[in-house]
């Protein structure tokens, strides 16, 4: 079986400071990988390197493309990489306003990716947008409202709909439940689980919330000082951590 994403030896420095160093792993179709670690551990740097937002100093990010099979996205031309970003890849930001166009209606936000890949039938675009609002539990009557009128949880769900409407195969998520109320988090987690299962999505989720990875991620990487110190099955890493830092991390949080 070919991995959907194969990350090999990714390193990123900021001057003399290490962002992340020598990170390698394979992600298979349908898998959800969690990346945990404290602030500054390099998890967001790694995510941004993989998603093409940052250029790593070394390494490869090989994605199994639909048309040409495995390709290193770091050596792809920029148009190809941006096309991936609109089609097979999705990125869910921690702050919904970073991932949404706040001056554009909910329907326009969801429809943008469709129009970006060439859809030119208003009725079809609107129908799909409305369908997706339903799937993320936003009432269809809100389709023409701007996200500025939405609650934080709704904005985050709208961001997810906007990302998933073109049926991506890989979703990068940066603290997708950060800053949301606990009850809203639960709803979002349930939604994401259902979407991952029903669409066969693969996902990489960066978070510092161990409860989130326990419920969403099949596999877990623990990062410290830019390095992966432990990786394995999520429940195994959380219930029987092997590395000193993982043990500290797990024992430091309230029971999850």
């Amino acid at each position, binding site marked *: 079986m070919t991995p959907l994403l194969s990350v090999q030896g990714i390193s990123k420095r900021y001057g003399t400071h290490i962002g992340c160093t020598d990170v390698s792993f394979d992600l298979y179709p349908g*898998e959800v990988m969690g990346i945990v670690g404290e602030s500054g551990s390099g998890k967001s740097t790694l995510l941004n390197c993989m998603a093409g937002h940052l250029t790593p100093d070394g390494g490869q990010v090989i994605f199994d493309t639909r048309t040409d099979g495995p390709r290193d996205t770091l050596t792809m031309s920029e148009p190809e990489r941006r096309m991936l970003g609109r089609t097979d890849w999705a990125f869910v930001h921690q702050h919904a306003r970073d991932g949404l166009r706040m001056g554009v209606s909910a329907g326009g936000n969801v429809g943008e990716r469709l129009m970006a890949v060439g859809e030119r039938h208003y009725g079809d675009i609107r129908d799909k947008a409305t369908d997706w609002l339903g799937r993320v539990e936003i009432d269809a009557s809100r389709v023409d409202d701007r996200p500025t009128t939405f609650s934080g949880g709704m904005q985050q769900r709208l961001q997810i709909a906007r990302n998933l409407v073109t049926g991506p195969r890989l979703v990068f998520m940066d603290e997708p439940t950060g800053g949301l109320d606990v009850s809203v988090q*639960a*709803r979002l987690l*349930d939604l994401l689980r259902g979407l991952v299962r029903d669409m066969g999505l693969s996902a990489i989720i960066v978070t510092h919330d161990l409860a989130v990875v*326990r419920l969403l991620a099949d596999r877990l990487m623990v990062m410290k000082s830019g390095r992966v110190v432990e990786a*394995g*099955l999520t429940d*195994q890493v959380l219930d*029987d951590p092997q590395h*000193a830092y993982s043990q500290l991390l797990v024992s430091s949080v309230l029971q999850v």
Partner: protein
Amino acid sequence: MIDLRNVSKTFTLHNQGSAVIEVINDVSFAVAPGECVSLTGASGAGKSTLMRMIYGNYLTQAGEIRIGDVDLVQAAPREVIALRREVLGYVSQFLRVVPRVPTLDVVAEPLRAVGGTEQDAQARAKVLLTQLNIPQRLWSLSPTTFSGGEQQRVNIARGFAHPYPAMLLDEPTASLDAANREVVLSLIEDAKARGAAIIGIFHDEAARARVCDSEIDVSRFTPGVAA
């Protein structure tokens, strides 16, 4: 179906002076299809630890744990995930679910995960919930709000939704009344009859005597206790 050879485990507590605790030492036994083996021993003997190792929840340092033709000790995470989805079921003592998901979906989820349609999965979930006497008015609610006994029964329904060829049962009859205990025991008997290999922990001696074919005294393999 389940085959343990020379299995050992230690815990290393890096943050407590790097204390090394040997918990399981050199366990070997096998469970055939249709067989049920009980793990016994005093509290703290390592029954749950061994069961968690067999589920891959705890990392095993040495030996082989074969479930079908997969060695859990060596398997890549995705192989373990596939194994748990299709082959190896686990009924723990605690129900761990996303807070607001309805009970019916919680029970149906294992079947959805192996590709069952929503309709079929829910139909099976309804049968199990009915068998285990969870009132229908609770099905649309999240089990996180239920009583301990109700949560336990939801957990069992979920564990028996998919016909796993290998099953691990951690105190499945604890805190159940006589009627529900009877339902659970018959579910176990049905699973054995269809050829499931089962490892269980039962404090309930009568239950153990009824469904288990043999017993393994785990304290024989726990250095701390034996010493």
